[in-house]
Structures are given as C-alpha cells and as structure tokens.
C-alpha cells in the first residue's frame, strides 16, 4: 500500500498528538509553541496534499478514496485551519491550555479530511463525528457562560442529527447489506431509497446550516471564540457539503428521485431566511452567522443544478458550487478574523464599529474587501462565483430561472446589511477614536484571504478550470 497517499492525514494526526504531548511538559502556561507547531504541521501537510491532485485511488478496501474532489476539499480544510491557527496565536495570547486548543483544532481538521476522502458511509460517519466531537469543546473553550451555553446547544443539535444520519445509513445497510456509498445504487425499493436519502439530507443539512436545520448556527457562532467562529463558518459547514456531494452524486442519480427539487426549495428558503434575519442583527457575529446561512443557500444552488440530466449543466453546477464554497471560506473566514482582530478593543455591536476605518485602517480595509466580495460585487472572487452559480441556475431550465431570480433578489437584500457595516466603519464618527493596535498575526491571514479574493476576482480562469476539472472527474 502506498502510504504517501494518506501522508497528509498522518502528519496532521502526528502534530495533533505532539501538541498534546507538549502539554505535559509546559512550564509557562501562555506558551505559544503548540501554535507554531501546528502551523508548521498544517503547512507541511498542505505540501503533501497538493501533488496528489490528479491521482485516483481506493485504499482500505474502498473505505478511503483519493480523487480530485477529496484533494480539493482537503486543501480547503487545511487552508481554513491554517488561517485560523495563525490568527489564534494573536487571539489566544492571554489564554491558558493552548496545546489542547490546537490539539482540538487539528483533530477537527483531521475529521474533516477523513470525511472528504470517505468511500463508505461508515468512514463518512466517523469523519463527521470526529469533526463534531472535537469542535464542541472548541466552542466552549473560554468557559464563559455564553460559550458553554452555545456549545451545549451545538452538542444537543449534533447528537440529534447524528442519530438522523445513522438512521439513514442503517436503512441503506438494511436494504443492501453493505455500507459502501456506491451500494446505495442497489436499493430496489423506491420508498426505502427515498426515506434513506431524506434522512441523509437532513443529517448533513444540519452541518451545512440548511433551513430548516439551521438553528444551531447563529447561537453557536455568537457564543464561540471568534477564531472558532471563523473555523465553523469557513470549515465545518463545508464538511457536510462534501458528504452531500458524495452521497447525492454518486448514489442517487440512478434512483430516479428528483432530489434536485427538494434542494431547490431548500436553497430558496435558506438564502431568503438567512438574508432577512441578518438584516436586523446588530450583534456582528450573529449578522455574519446569518449571512453564512444565506451563503450556504447560494452554494446549494449548485448542488440542485447538479441533479440536471444534462451532464454539461450538472458539471457547471458542481464547479460553481465548489468555487463559491472555496470563495466563501476565504471571505467569511477573513471577515470573522477581522472581527476577532478588533473584538478586544471594539466589541461585537455594530455601533462599536463606527469609525473603524480611522481606528484600525488596515483591518477595516481588509474587511471592506470581504464585504464587497460577500455582496458579490466586481472585481472580487465573490462576484465570479456568484455569476457562475447564476449562469448554471439559468441553464437548469424553468425552475432554474426561479433560482436565478431569488439569487439576484437576495443579493440586493444582502447589500443592505453589508453596506450598513461598511457605512459604520468608514462614515460614522466613533465615540472613542483611539487607535487599535493591529497585530501582525491577524493581518497575515486576512492578507492571504484578501490576496486570494482579489486574484481570483481579476483573473478567474485558472480557478474556474480547476473547479471544472474536479467536476469532470465526478460526473
């Protein structure tokens, strides 16, 4: 067996354990070694992931798949982890128990990577559970009332939807005697196939924050440490997307179930709900959390289009979805890191952001670029990916026009609250106009995200091509 194929996972696992070992020998409680160690681990892991891009392989009797989809998602997960790890160095400066924090962060990443590579429903479930179980304590890490409460909620939701997922898996197993994803093809009974699929959609939909399974998201985001909010928005909601792609695209097309219709309704519901609720939020993290729900709605547009019988259109839908997912990681992750950067001095209310353009000019201008991209305005990556989603929705047919219209209307709606934040930052005078110290460890991840957003906005061709080649490998 070729172990280089799972070397990235091994590296992450090793570094996670190393930071735990480090915890035994620490003398200084606020020591940052574990942070730098995990950054190093993540970077070396990404170095080993990238060359695997064109490889297709089955490991462990088909339990573990290496294909372009898995690799692109692994790159995505490691990048968001890396951004979060870098900003955590600054964000957790005064905290204790840091090695455990980074251990949990790396474990979550590992869980996400396993999910991306899963070829079997059991692997999928293990990956999702590892992701979930290691992220519950991360949310509660500060041990404040609010974060304990949100972690509690997150855990209860997680348990409920784990059960739902497991029920779906057990239906597949009961009908076919096998748990491999491809075995779902063999279900003959239409009813069982339908119910199994619905349960799987509900179970995965919980992590992607599709309405009506979305309720954990806002509370968890607002209670979690802000660096972890970035991780939740940029990373964890994407885990379930890869699960959805795997299950729906591989297993369901032959079942003659119009899952596209379900996803279409869910997508319109999700984006509209997210945007409308975000309008009235004054707590900045809640606002961004609801905006994440809206963006998840946009992403599902691509998944709905992927159900099209025309292969070209299906490919375009998957490509658009992948692209928006990646872009969303950078812009929303970046936005939360910007919130983290000023949280200590400014606070979380939107009124605290008045005059941020003067008080913390670099952070504010990064934030502005994230907002422009989130609103989908040229020349940023957010525009390109939203345009692709729009094109794919239009090509989907009559129902697609409905999707396209709601996408456009929602874009206008979202401009209101993104614009309001921009207005507070640049045009409203602050009560207290003292400068905020901008830590370099916050600026680096924001800078990386900004550069990515601008490069992709100005020269989208290579990124679009990568997304399309991944889609080609699937359909």
């Amino acid at each position, binding site marked *: 067996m070729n172990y280089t194929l799972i070397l990235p996972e091994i590296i992450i696992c090793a570094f996670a354990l190393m930071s735990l070992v480090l915890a035994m020998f620490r003398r200084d409680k606020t020591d940052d070694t574990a942070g730098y160690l995990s950054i190093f681990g993540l970077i070396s892991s990404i170095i080993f992931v990238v060359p695997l891009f064109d490889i297709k392989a089955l490991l462990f009797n088909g339990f573990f798949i290496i294909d372009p989809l898995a690799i692109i998602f692994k790159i995505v997960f490691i990048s968001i982890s890396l951004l979060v790890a870098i900003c955590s160095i600054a964000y957790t400066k005064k905290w204790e128990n840091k090695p455990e924090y980074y251990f949990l962060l790396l474990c979550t990443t590992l869980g996400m990577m396993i999910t991306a590579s899963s070829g079997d429903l059991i692997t999928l479930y293990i990956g999702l559970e590892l992701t979930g179980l290691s992220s519950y304590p991360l949310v509660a890490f500060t041990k404040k009332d609010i974060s304990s409460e949100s972690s509690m909620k997150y855990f209860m939701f997680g348990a409920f939807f784990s059960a739902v997922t497991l029920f779906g898996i057990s239906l597949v197993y009961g009908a076919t005697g096998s748990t491999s994803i491809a075995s779902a093809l063999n279900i003959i009974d239409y009813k069982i196939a339908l119910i199994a699929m619905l*349960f799987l959609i*509900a179970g995965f939909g919980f992590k992607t924050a599709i309405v*009506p399974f979305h309720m954990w998201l806002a509370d968890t985001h607002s209670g979690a440490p802000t660096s972890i909010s970035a991780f939740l928005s940029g990373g964890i909601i994407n885990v379930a997307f890869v699960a959805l792609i795997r299950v729906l695209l591989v297993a369901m097309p032959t079942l003659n179930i119009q899952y596209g219709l379900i996803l279409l309704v869910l997508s319109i519901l999700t984006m509209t709900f997210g945007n409308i609720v975000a309008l*009235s939020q004054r707590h900045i993290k809640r606002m961004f959390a609801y905006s994440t729900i809206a963006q998840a709605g946009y992403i599902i547009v691509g998944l709905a289009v992927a159900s099209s019988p025309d292969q070209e259109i299906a490919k375009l839908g998957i490509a658009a979805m992948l692209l928006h997912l990646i872009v969303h990681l950078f812009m929303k992750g970046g936005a939360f890191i910007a919130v983290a950067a000023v949280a200590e001095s400014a606070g979380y209310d939107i009124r605290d952001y008045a005059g941020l353009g003067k008080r913390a000019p670099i952070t504010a201008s990064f934030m502005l670029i994230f907002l422009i991209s989130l609103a989908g305005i040229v*020349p940023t990556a957010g525009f390109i990916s939203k345009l692709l989603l729009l094109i794919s929705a*239009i090509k989907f047919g009559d129902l697609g026009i409905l999707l396209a219209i709601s996408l456009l209307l929602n874009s206008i709606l979202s401009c209101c609250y993104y614009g309001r934040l921009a207005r507070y930052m640049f045009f409203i005078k602050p009560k207290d106009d003292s400068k905020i110290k901008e830590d370099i460890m916050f600026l680096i991840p924001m800078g990386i995200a900004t550069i990515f957003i601008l490069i992709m906005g100005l020269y989208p061709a290579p990124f679009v091509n990568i997304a399309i080649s991944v889609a080609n490998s699937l359909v």
Partner: protein
Amino acid sequence: MINAPPGIIFILGALLVPFLRGNIRKAYLLLLPLVAFVDLLYMPHGTNYVFNFIGLDLIFARVDSLSMVFAYVFVIIAFIGNLYAIHVKESWQHMTALIYAGSALGVVFAGDLFSLFIFWEIMAIASALLIWSRKTKASLNAGFRYILVHIFGGVCLLAGIALHFSNTGSILFGNIGLDGLDTYLIFLGFIINAAVPPLHAWLVDAYPESTITGTVFLSAFTTKTAVYVLARSFPGTEILIIIGALMTVYPIFYAVLENDIRKVLGYSLINQVGFMITGIGIGTALSINGTVSHAFCHIIYKALLFMSMGSVIYMTGKDKFTDLGGLYKTMPLTLIFCMIGAASISAFPLFSGFISKSMIVTASAEGGMLLTWFLLLFASAGVFHHAGIKVPYFTFFAHDSGIRAKEPPLNMLLAMGIAAFLCIFIGIYPDILYNILPYPVDFIPYTTPHVVSQLQLLFFAGLAFLFLITYGYYPPEQRAINLDTDWFYRKGAKWFTWFINNPLSEFSRLTAQATLNFFLFLLWFSRNPLAALKILLNIEKNREKYPNIPQYLEVVNLNAILTLIFLSICILVFLLK
C-alpha cells in the same frame, strides 16, 4: 500585435498613480490619455480580444465607427479633465477618475453583454468614489443615494442579461429591440443611467456634491455611455422619442427655478441627453448621426461649462447664484470660456452645438413628427434661457456681489481653453466630426433656413430676457423664476404642480408607507422568528414578552420538530405522487 483596448490602458495605468509624486505624476496623468489616443488612432475595426469563459465569448474590443466616435471623445475629455484636475493632491481622486474613464471606454468597446455589465458596475463604483472624494456630509449621503440607484439599475441589467441569455442562448451585444421581459429589464437598466425622468434624481442630486474637478468627469461618462448602449441596442424604438422629448422639456422648469449653479447645469445635462434619446428613438441614419455627434459636442461643451463654473466655485467658494454676480471685472477669461460654452449649448451658429443639434431637429421634422419637433424647438429656447443666459448672467453680471476673485490657476485656464477651442473648431469645420460618424453624412448645417430660423429662435428668446431685465419687472434674486413663463406655461406648470402635489404625492406617500411598514414588520419578525410566530398565531398572548435572543435550548426542540415536519412533508409528497 493588435492595439490594446484603451479602457485597459486607463484602468491598468490608474493603478500606477498612487506610486508617483509631484511633476512625474502630472506628466504621467497627461501622457496616459495621449497614449490611449494614439492607440485609438491605429485601432483596427473588427472584433478582437475574445476570451472564452466557461463557454461564453467575452469580447473586449468590438470596434466599429459607432464605438470609435464615443471612444475618441472619451479620451479627449479624459485628457482635458486630467489637465483641469492636475493640481489636486489626493492621488486616489486621480486614480478613481482614470478607472472611471477606463470603464466607460470598456463599455464602449464591449462586444458582449457580460463584459459590458462588468465595466458598467466598475463605472458605477468608480463614479461613486469620485462623488465621495469631496468628503462632506452632503456628498456622502448623495453618493449613497447614487450608488443605491446604480446598484438597482445594475441588478435590473444583470437580470435582463441573464433572461436574455436563457431565451436566446447568446450574449452578443447588438441590436436588441424591445420585446419580452428580458429586453425591458435591460432597457430599464440602461435608461436609469441615462437619467430619464422620473429616474433622473440621482444626477442632479449627486453631481453638484462631487468635487469641482470630479464633476467634469461625471458629466461626461455615465449618461453618455447610456446613450451609446441605447444607440447600439435600441435604435428606432418609438417609446424613446416620447421619453426623449419629455426629457428635453421637463428639466427646463427646474433649471430656471434652481439656485445652485451646478444643479442648473445638471438639469441642462438631462435636457441635452433628451435630444440624444429622441434621436435614437427616431432611428433614421440622420438622427443616429445627430445623436452621436451631439453626444460628441455635448461632452465637450458641457465639460467646458462645468469647468468654468467650477473655476468660479474654486476661486470664490460659493455655489449659489444669489451669492455671486459682478465677477466679469476680475475673471474675464473665465467669462469668455463660459460664454463659448453657453453659445455652444444654445446652438449658436459657428459653435459646436449648432451643427449637431440641428441634425436631430431636422430628423424629427423629416419624420413628420410635429409635436416632437415643436417640443425640441421649445427645449432649444429653454436651454438658451437657463444655460445660455442665466448661468453667465447671474454669475458674472447681475448685481455686484462685491467678490473680487482672481482668475483660476493656469492649468484650469488651459483645460478650458482647449475645450473652448474644440467647441469653435467643430462649429466651423463640422466635416471633421461628420467624417467619423457611423453613417455617411449628407447634411449641411449652414444653409440659410437653418441659420435664420435658429437665429430667430435665439433672438426672440434673448429679447424676452432683455425686456425683463430692462424694465426691472422682477427683483434680482427672483428673476430666474419668472424668466420663461408666459401665461400658457405658467398654467401648465400650475397644473403640473397640482398633479405632483396631490394625486402623485399621495400615491407615493402611501406606497412608501406600505413599503416601510412591510420592512418594519420584517425587522420585527426577524429579530426572533420563533417568538414572533407565537405572537402572530396567538399562542403567546402577551405581546410585550418578546425577547431579543431565542430562549435557552427551546430552539433545539423547535428544530427537531421542524426537521420531522420537513421529513414528513417530503415523504408524503413523494410517496403520494
């Protein structure tokens, strides 16, 4: 090697500006339009720079004579505008102005709807930044209103493009014509940028709030790109004749009432664009030629007017007619330039406005459109009143305000000089302009009937003004209000004001109220949907009990229930089907 599209030269060139300082930057700012101009001169006609983007052909350089005319005048005005603004220190103002010019050129050369849309959006953002660069509270608010209108227009355009694409399968930007929802949406997106009443408010709202130098750019690009795209995609659309004729007349009333110098010029800008829109609506070769040449001349003389008034504002710091007057003693050169601009916009023979406007008026007469022709003539007299007489008279003569401002700096004078020269030059040698028009021209402006009828019109309009001044019928500050209202128009205006005040405003109040209530409800509802739902369904009787944050763990139960509802609905729907 095929020449690069000039829009790209401007946009990429703009990115260098922040790194340059002092004289190097000044030279660079003047050099960039020159380079673009030379580039234009050797631009081959045809379709170049085609990029394939997920199966769509994006065309960045579709060059033909229609786009070339607009490109020429855009580059010329970019040069003049840069020269006029060269003393400005903030480099980002220069940068946004250049990006703005570049995106306008990008629109002009875009051969497909998607790249057109991208440049269209960049144009909206860059121009909003230009408005904000004045940094006053008024300009901030006006800029916000401006960008909101343009985002709305942009979304209409994008929706139209998307629908058009799904209907026809092509994103080629050519003659579209009005049929079906998609084309109406595209049309709406275009005419919002053309400042068609009642969607014109952004123009007079925002342009006077920009910086003195920014207004010169603003007056040139946004509305004229709209004219270009309309001429390209909707020529001969009849509704444009009505819209255009209304556009020429409607702003006149406001222009004579207005006291802010640049607002008056803004209204006259709408009036002039109305002529062009009418020309597009008529759709004959002569009228399209008239539209294009009028756009060409208009950009230059309107910039000249904005520049001369900008100089006055720059030197005196005042922008109301009531505060100005008697400046002719100390600003003679500015006065001369302003008079040349005024003569051009009033279409005096030997000035540029005459050779272009008469084409549109003649085209309407040849088409037998009596009412349109009459409205255009009326508007011509009106524009002479407010832009031709009112602006110079109340600024430079009228009552002596006691201000003794000096002439503006040399670069401003030079920029105005170049524009003034072009106004006269084109007026005397119209063939230079006629040769580059999209259709062959067999129109001779300087025939006796043309000249005589135009002079008659102007003479009587001037006489009316002289009459009022000499007999001192009205106190100085109110002269403007009564200038061109004889009893007929006064009655029309009265009826019009009644209509505005009563049914129309009541209607708009009611709709505004309804929209507001709807959004307030949404806000109330979205603060805590769960509790709101309870109150709405009368489960929770006590309306005061409306917490801001969802209750502890209650959400978990609710979500479980929602999930089960979802599952049962789906199963029912699919199994019963």
